[in-house]
């Protein structure tokens, strides 16, 4: 093999390229104004696994919600609707369990993730409350409810820990204290919302 042939072979590795969407996103994150958040860890936002999980949950939650609010025509469609809901709720539960595992592994959070989680929990609760009206779905709905609570709890915990490590002004300190109080009372959604507020307050 000549030097030229060898070098040509090595040059094939030039085909390695990063994902285009990641390149664009990273540039935006790097050069955006720096007043976004005290706890903003933009690395986490760029992780496709997290983005896809949250999108997956939202899509599943949307399907469940549409199915629940759609009026049924007859008994046959009620049965098949319940079956579909059963499958959709199971999927939603699985997605939430996976995302909870990811959130635990992230060991840190960002305002955008917190907002995504808060919105997922809020919409998920609407779905769960609707599903609980159907006795056949009640236990599954409880399971999803637990996953949603777990998601809010873990994210709130990480958000509070991040805020504690940050330099906070007076308003933020008050909000952090409130978030901790909610957390200790087991009101994880409220705790998360206070943490979001604290991370955005100047």
């Amino acid at each position, binding site marked *: 093999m000549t030097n030229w042939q060898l070098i040509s072979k*090595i040059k094939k*590795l030039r085909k*390695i390229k990063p994902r285009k969407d990641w390149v664009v996103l990273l*540039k935006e994150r790097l*050069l955006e104004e720096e007043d976004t958040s005290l706890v903003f860890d933009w690395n986490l936002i*760029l992780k496709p696994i997290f983005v896809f999980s949250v999108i997956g949950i939202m899509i599943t939650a949307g399907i469940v919600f549409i199915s629940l609010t759609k009026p049924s025509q007859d008994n046959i469609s009620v049965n098949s609707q319940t079956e579909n809901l059963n499958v959709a709720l199971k999927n939603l539960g699985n997605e939430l369990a996976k995302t909870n595992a990811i959130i635990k592994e992230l060991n840190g959070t960002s305002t955008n993730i917190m907002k995504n989680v808060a919105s997922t929990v809020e919409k998920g609760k609407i779905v769960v409350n609707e599903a609980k009206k159907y006795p056949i779905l009640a236990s599954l709905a409880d399971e999803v409810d637990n996953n949603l609570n777990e998601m809010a709890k873990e994210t709130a915990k990480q958000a509070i820990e991040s805020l504690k490590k940050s330099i906070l002004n007076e308003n933020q300190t008050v909000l952090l204290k409130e978030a901790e109080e909610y957390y200790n009372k087991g009101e994880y959604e409220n705790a998360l919302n206070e943490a979001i507020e604290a991370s955005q307050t100047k």
Partner: protein
Amino acid sequence: MKKFKKQFERIYEKYVDKIYRFVFLKVSSSEIAEDLTSQVFLRGWDKFKKQNPTFQIQNASAYLFQIARSEIANHYREKSKIQTISTESKELFDLQLNPEESQSLTSDFIEIRKAISLLPEESQNMIVLRYVNGLSNREIAKILDKSEGAIRVALHRSLKELRERLL
């Protein structure tokens, strides 16, 4: 600030693929390569902001690759892993190729990556920087803190060793 951003944007666009490629060849996954590359540019942007206008754009390449090397070293230190060029092929490249092209290219990739991974670390760096990323001997000399002459000689020796590995 707007002017600085524009300047750094040009540096980013020029080097993001090269830094990613350099990192990717050293770690085992595209996700880790993305994380480490992000860190490289974050640190680069911090330095650029603080030192502008004294930061010399022509030194950007050396500076970014030096950060990349240090991020890779930190990654392996934290994970207590041995640092080599990754030979995993399963999560390779986002290439738009037909299946035939893709198959032949993938086998070439695996072969050459494996051969490079068997070289000493500094030889790996030189080969990747020179022939994969197309940097000049002068740039490589700055990154590796050696003279251009030493790089020329070492590259010659590394190519010879690589050829033997491929036989």
